[in-house]
C-alpha cells in the first residue's frame, strides 16, 4: 500500500484521536501529541509502526492528536486515514 495524498480521520473529542497521514520521501515520520503521551506515547508509536509494517507502508508522514483514545479507536482512525490517503474512495 502506498500513501499518495493526504487523509484524515477522527475528532478532537475526549477518548478519540485525530490522525492525518500524508506522503513522505524519507521513510516514516511520526509525530505524536497526546494527553497521555508520557504514559502511552511509546505504545501509540509501536501501534502505528506495526500497522504500517503490516500494510507494507514505508514512506509516510503521520500526525496524531490523541485525546486518550483506546487502541482500537486509534487503529480504526488510522485505517480510515490511510485508506483515504491511498486513494481508496468507496464506502468512506
Amino acid at each position, binding site marked *: 500500500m502506498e500513501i499518495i495524498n493526504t487523509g484524515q480521520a477522527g475528532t478532537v473529542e*475526549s477518548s478519540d484521536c485525530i490522525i*492525518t497521514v500524508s506522503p513522505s520521501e524519507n521513510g516514516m515520520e511520526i509525530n505524536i501529541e497526546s494527553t497521555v503521551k508520557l504514559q502511552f506515547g511509546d505504545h501509540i508509536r509501536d501501534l502505528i509502526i506495526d500497522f504500517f509494517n503490516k500494510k507494507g507502508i514505508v514512506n509516510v508522514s503521520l500526525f496524531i492528536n490523541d485525546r486518550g483514545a483506546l487502541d482500537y479507536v486509534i487503529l480504526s482512525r488510522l485505517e480510515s486515514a490511510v485508506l483515504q490517503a491511498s486513494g481508496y474512495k468507496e464506502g468512506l
Partner: protein
Amino acid sequence: MNPWGFTERELKNEEDLEKLKVFLSSFDLVYEDSVDYTILILDNENEIIAAGSLFRNILKGLAVNQDYQGDQLIDYLVSHLISVAKEKGYYHYFIFTSPQMAESFKYLGFNEIARAEQMAVLLEYGNQNIENYYSIMKEKTSADYSLEGAGIVVNCNPFTNGHRYLIEYASQREKRVHVFVLEEDLSTFPFETRLMLVREGTKDLGNVFVHPGGSYIISSAIFPAYFLKTEDAKTLAQAKLDVKIFANYVMRIFNLSARYVGEEPYCMVTSCYNKAMMEELLPLGKKLIIIPRKQISGEVISASHVRKALRENDFTKIASLVPETTLKFLKSAEAKYIIEKLKNKESRH
C-alpha cells in the same frame, strides 16, 4: 447529530445573525463577515448555547455558553468545523480567537502562534506548523545565514519599478535580502504569477532571495482587515499580530535584523500596518527602514496605477512603470485573462 440532543443547524437569517453577534460579544469575540459557514447549537428555547464559524481553514467565532462549558461542546464544535474544512481539502487549521478563549483550544492540541495583548490570539493545528514551514524554506535556500540580513514583504500586483527600486535599494545596503511574496490569492494577479514576476525582475540581484509568503504573512487568517479593507481598532490588532509573527518566526529563523518597507501615502490600511511595524519591531531590537517611494514625473509608482493603465490599454504608461520582465508578461497571451478580469472590477490590492 450531537450526543446531547440539542438542535444544531447552520446560521440562516438576519435574526440568527443578530443573536449570534450578541452571544459572541460576551466572549470578546466579534462576528466577521468573511465567513463561509456558521454552525449554531440551540437550547429548547431556541437560544444559542454554542457557535462556531469557518472561513476556509480558519476557525473563528467559537464560543460556548458558561452553563454548558463542562459538556465538551467546544470539542464537538472544533471537530465539526475541522471535518467541514477537511471536506474542502484543508488539513491545516487556524483558530482566531480572544485571549479569554485561547486556553480551551490549547487543551485540544492547538498551538499558539502569536497574540496581540487584550485583543486576539492565533493558534494552529495540523500537518504543518510555522516553525517547520519556515525552517524547511530556509534549508532549501542556499544563503550564508551567519551574517544578518533584511526582509521585505510584497504583494506586487503586479511587480513594478517601485518594487524593484525598494528591493535593489535594500540589496545594495544589506548582505542578504529575503523577499516574501504574499500567498493569499485575493489579488488580481494570481500568486504564481506575482511570484514569478518578482523572481524574474530581481534575477540579476545576487543577494536577493524570493520566497512564497506562506499562510503566515499577511494572510486572511491573521489579517482579514487587509483584505476586507476595513479601518478600525481591529485592523491595528491584526496588523500587530502579523508583525509579531514576522519578527518572532521569519526574522528569527532567517536571521534578519531589518525590515524594509515602502512609504505608504495612499492606502490607510497599509499605513496603519506601517505604524504597527514601528511599534512592534523596535522594542525587539529590529530595524524598520521606510523608503520614500520611487517617483516618475512627480507621481509615485504604484501597482494600482499599472492596473489602471491596463484597464485603459495604455501600454506607453505601463512601460514607464514596470520593468522589462513585467512588461513582457503583460503583453503575453497569458496575461489576457487577467487583464479582462481587471477590467471587470475595481479593487485596491
